[in-house]
């Protein structure tokens, strides 16, 4: 099975390097901003962590799109789970040892783990995808930033004690794992095919990221350090805007969109 495999690079309206810069800078700045604004201004600013996660998710989905369009030989979902698998190991390590530099150490260790997996995938397993090393590094880093962003929006900080008590020990980390992983893997999985377009795929990523943000907002009801209402409301707003935009892109890319009405009732159908 070769999911979405056409054996070539995917055309890009936005160059990948811009998306990398966007993901890294917006993700890291967002995580730090949410921490400092929550600490010094108001807990309401915990929603910035969710925005950081959305930026990281868009970057991750773009990287998945790039590497998966070569045809991985297996389904796209595997790479999303790999992203969060690498990301969760790196992010917990970074936060545990790093203190205030935690997110940066987490990002660096995720990049190193991703690079090693990418190199081994090409050299040992012999996948032979020219962008495997770079993409694995990007995907691991994006997965790591997604976890950091969602954790920050759940707890209002990235300091390890708060994350450990409120996110890991309570099990919400599993929610982050699945919601973040789906947000990274689903956009390309849902849009792949010959008519796949970068803007439509990335808009799905924004929409899925907004769902993860809403869930993080619901979780933050249970924590002291973070306000839930702004996260949920802003998440809902972003979700609505992204979904509307996505629908417009679908209308644009489809040959024709027609209403077929409701399914016929049993009597009508038998006539």
């Amino acid at each position, binding site marked *: *099975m*070769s*999911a979405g495999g056409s054996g070539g690079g995917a055309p890009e309206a936005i160059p990948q390097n811009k998306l990398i810069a966007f993901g890294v800078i917006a993700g890291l700045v967002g995580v730090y901003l949410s921490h400092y604004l929550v600490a010094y201004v108001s807990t309401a600013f915990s929603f910035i962590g969710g925005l950081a996660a959305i930026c990281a998710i868009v970057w991750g989905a773009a990287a998945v799109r790039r590497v998966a369009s070569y045809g*991985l*030989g*297996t*389904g796209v*979902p*595997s*790479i999303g*789970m*790999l992203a*969060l*698998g*690498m*990301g*969760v*190991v*790196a992010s*917990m*390590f970074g936060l*545990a*040892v790093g203190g205030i530099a935690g997110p940066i150490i987490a990002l660096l*260790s995720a990049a*190193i*783990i991703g690079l*090693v*997996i990418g190199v*081994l*995938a090409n050299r*040992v*397993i*012999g*996948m032979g995808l020219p962008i495997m090393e770079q993409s694995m590094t990007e995907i691991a880093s994006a997965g790591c930033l997604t976890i950091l962003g969602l954790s920050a929006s759940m707890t209002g900080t990235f300091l*390890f004690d708060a994350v*450990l*008590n409120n996110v*890991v*020990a*309570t*099990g919400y*980390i*599993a929610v982050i*794992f699945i919601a973040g992983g789906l947000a990274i893997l689903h956009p390309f999985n849902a849009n792949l095919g010959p008519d796949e377009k970068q803007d439509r795929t990335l808009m799905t990523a924004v929409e899925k990221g907004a769902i993860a943000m809403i869930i993080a907002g619901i979780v933050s009801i249970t924590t002291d350090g973070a306000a839930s209402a702004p996260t949920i409301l802003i998440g809902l707003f972003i979700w609505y805007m992204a979904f509307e935009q996505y629908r417009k892109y679908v209308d644009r890319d489809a040959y024709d969109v027609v209403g077929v009405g409701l399914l016929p009732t049993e009597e009508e159908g038998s006539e």
Partner: protein
Amino acid sequence: MIDIAGILIDNILFVALITLGGVLISWSVHFVPVGGAPAAMAQATGIGTGTVQLAAGAGLTGLVTAGAMINVTDSLPLILASGAVGAMIMISVTMIVGTWVYTYGVGVPPASAKVDYDPITKDRQDIYVSQGTEGHGLPTVSFVSGVIGGGLGGIGGAMVYYSLVNITTGLSATNLMGLASIFAVGIFFVNAVIPSYNIGGTIEGFHDPKFKRWPKAVITSFIVTFMCSIVGVIAIGGL
């Protein structure tokens, strides 16, 4: 500053066990009859979903059963056995229900396209394979292979979790369990995806020619899990 060398020397046994567990998980995936999307349409032998979903389903069940056993005993063999049995039950249930669906729902006989005779039952296979397909359903050999894979994966997952939980640390029991389980899940997923790239997404079991590729995935998993185990041991041991 954390005494990295000291933590690693104190827990060197656990680093080794985590690495061994990761390698076992990686090897185990090669046994599981993964059919992917073609199998979901009964056009390839195996269970109709991806490696990661199957490995996660069986492996995480193994983690849960191993975790339950850790609460009552410290004996490593019992914990590993509990993990193995949990994962084997899960994968067997998945395969038997899948077989019912293929046999009574889709209406195809279980048949392998990779071998002419089932290595275990010696039943003829090739004449039952529908034209245009690469086999369908779960023949006996694939089922047995899948159970072996589930068992190995469960042992691997239980070994990773047992090692992480037993690292010397200042964490409270609840926090340690939470952190150890999410580390174990992360390591599990990484080691489930690596072999799935190695086998190209589908495999029938240990009789499939692709099974011979396992050393590549095992080497890769060895290096990657070794890195992850050091990272995990430092993170948990340093707290």
